[in-house]
């Protein structure tokens, strides 16, 4: 679902434009060369990423506090006595000023301590690290399958543009991006588990399972994620390559009589690297979020399931910790995409 919103937001390279627009105007007389050096640009993009991460942590912590609704009252229910509310506020540390709580929260997280859960008083950090590897396994395997497949199919679609293979691919991918993730998941369960009986449900993994057993347990969740991400990635790859192919310099190369192979190798490919890498990074980010729904569908003990459970019981330390983690992964992936685009496309090194 998030992938769709990326296609929609038009330009890939989400935060890149921000980096460019935010650039201070080069001071007159200063050597413009150092301003545009690769190292400087990359360092600036990384600094922006870190700044965003901090701002996001403030938003996740402070924004939540600014919303109406008192945690202690939610925690105890509407009928709680004022005394009980005061006690619980003290117990949870809500009576301290917000900045103090924010700083100790952030300081703790920097040391790997996400606080304790309100509902069962377990360490949030412990749960997160344990579940994170399970979620990353799910996302990683899906990425390994979907990336080569998407790029290959995207290229086939371009090669046979407006002919049968392209039409088939575009109809199928339109259908796939229109299906909610949970519907794809249940369709797969209905078909493979209920009718054929060849795969397991729920997709439980537990400690002490070998990698092979884990992989066979997550076949259906991975298939769901691949279907969702593949469609988006393919459409974006197709339009990124088509965009390059329909540019003026490719037309010039065509008109001066270069062979198709040389046009692709010398003119199109170097310019297509950046958009395709951006497409991949954006879809990896979408994949990490897609994990949330898929984990709920397949009752998979990952970090997404953990967060959704916490949201339903309003267990704020867990919600905020997981939220920050998801945001961090998303921000880092976007940052990597931008840096690769800067490396691949010299034109981005000269911001206007």
């Amino acid at each position, binding site marked *: 679902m998030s992938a769709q919103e990326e296609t929609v937001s038009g330009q890939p390279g989400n935060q890149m434009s921000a980096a460019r627009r935010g650039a201070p105007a080069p001071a007159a007389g200063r050597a413009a060369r150092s301003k545009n050096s690769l190292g400087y640009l990359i360092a600036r993009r990384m600094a922006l990423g870190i700044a965003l991460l901090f701002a996001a942590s403030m938003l996740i912590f402070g*924004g939540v506090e600014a919303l109406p609704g008192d945690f202690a009252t939610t925690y105890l229910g509407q009928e709680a006595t004022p005394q009980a509310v005061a006690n619980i506020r003290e117990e949870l540390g809500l009576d301290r000023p917000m900045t103090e709580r924010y700083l100790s929260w952030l300081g703790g997280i920097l040391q790997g301590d996400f606080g304790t859960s309100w509902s069962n008083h377990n360490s949030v950090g412990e749960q997160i690290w344990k579940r994170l590897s399970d979620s990353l396994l799910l996302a990683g395997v899906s990425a390994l399958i979907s990336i080569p497949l998407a790029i290959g199919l995207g290229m086939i679609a371009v090669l046979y543009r407006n002919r049968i293979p392209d039409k088939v691919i575009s109809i199928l991918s339109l259908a796939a991006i229109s299906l909610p993730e949970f*519907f794809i998941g249940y369709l797969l369960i209905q078909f493979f588990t209920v009718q054929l009986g060849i795969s397991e449900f729920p997709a439980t993994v537990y400690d002490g399972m070998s990698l092979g057993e884990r992989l066979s347990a997550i076949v259906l969740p991975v298939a769901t994620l691949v279907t969702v991400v593949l469609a988006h990635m393919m459409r974006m790859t197709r339009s990124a390559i088509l965009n390059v192919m329909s540019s003026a310099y490719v037309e010039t190369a065509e008109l001066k009589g270069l062979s198709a192979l040389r046009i692709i190798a010398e003119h199109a490919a170097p310019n297509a690297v950046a958009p395709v890498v951006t497409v991949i990074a954006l879809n990896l980010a979408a994949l990490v979020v897609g994990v949330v729904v898929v984990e709920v569908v397949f009752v998979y003990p990952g970090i997404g399931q953990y967060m959704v459970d916490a949201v339903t019981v309003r267990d*704020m330390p867990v919600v905020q910790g997981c939220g920050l983690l998801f945001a961090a992964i998303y921000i880092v992936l976007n940052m990597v995409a931008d840096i690769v685009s800067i490396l691949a496309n010299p034109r981005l090194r000269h911001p206007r």
Partner: protein
Amino acid sequence: MRLRSMPISARIGLAGIMLVALCAIFAPLIAPYSESAVVGEVWAPMGGDFILGTDNLGRDLLSRLIYGARATLFVALAATLLSFSIGMTLSFTAVVSGGIVDQVLSRLNDLLMSIPALILALIVLAVLPQNIGILIVVMAAIDSTRVYRIGRAVALDVSVMDYVEAAWLRGEGKLWIIFREILPNTLAPLLGEFGLRFAFSILFLSTLSFLGLGIQPPVADWGGMVKDNKEGIIFGVSAALAPGAAIAFLVICVNLVVDWLINATASLKGARGDA
């Protein structure tokens, strides 16, 4: 963009959207049973008195599906309209004002977009009380960041046109520039965007309801119906698949129309090729 030149795919899409809209408007007339009445046994199979069978509490699935079109369509449409109002107002203001206003709004927008939409929604809905009004506002606020980004880009292109310059020189105010110069010239590309955001809103709402954070029972909505009936899947009860298929049907129809809208408006730009 004439209706006559509409391709067959877009016609199918439009017909599908109208079908769902009719179901939503005339739900009490069409539905064989009431929305929340328990009329049969739990998870009765298809056929007989109940065309699609019954749900996890013994309510008629088809009736709930028809009533569900109401909540799903209404909330998604309201959220999209609100998000466009917010996003376009802010982005046009940013473009017309420029300078510090633009910087502040754009950086804030970047910040909000740096957190994935679903995650942001989960965090916010964990705190706020659950009702339809709040749900619409939260969905709209999150979505408006995406509208802002595209709105700003489109408005920026228009704002450097000679006729806008001429309007400034005539001494028109900001409101005139926004509503009389920029808005009419950005409507065509934003129309396609509206369709895309609407499709996204339907999926987003359904996902939230599926996770138990969207529309609350006993009101029927398609995402929530999947959640209600999901336990049945392993017993071979396909009650959860019908609302899922309804969501897919509606979104495919919207996307078919959007594809046509985007192609029709893209040709206005006169670009080479068909990317």
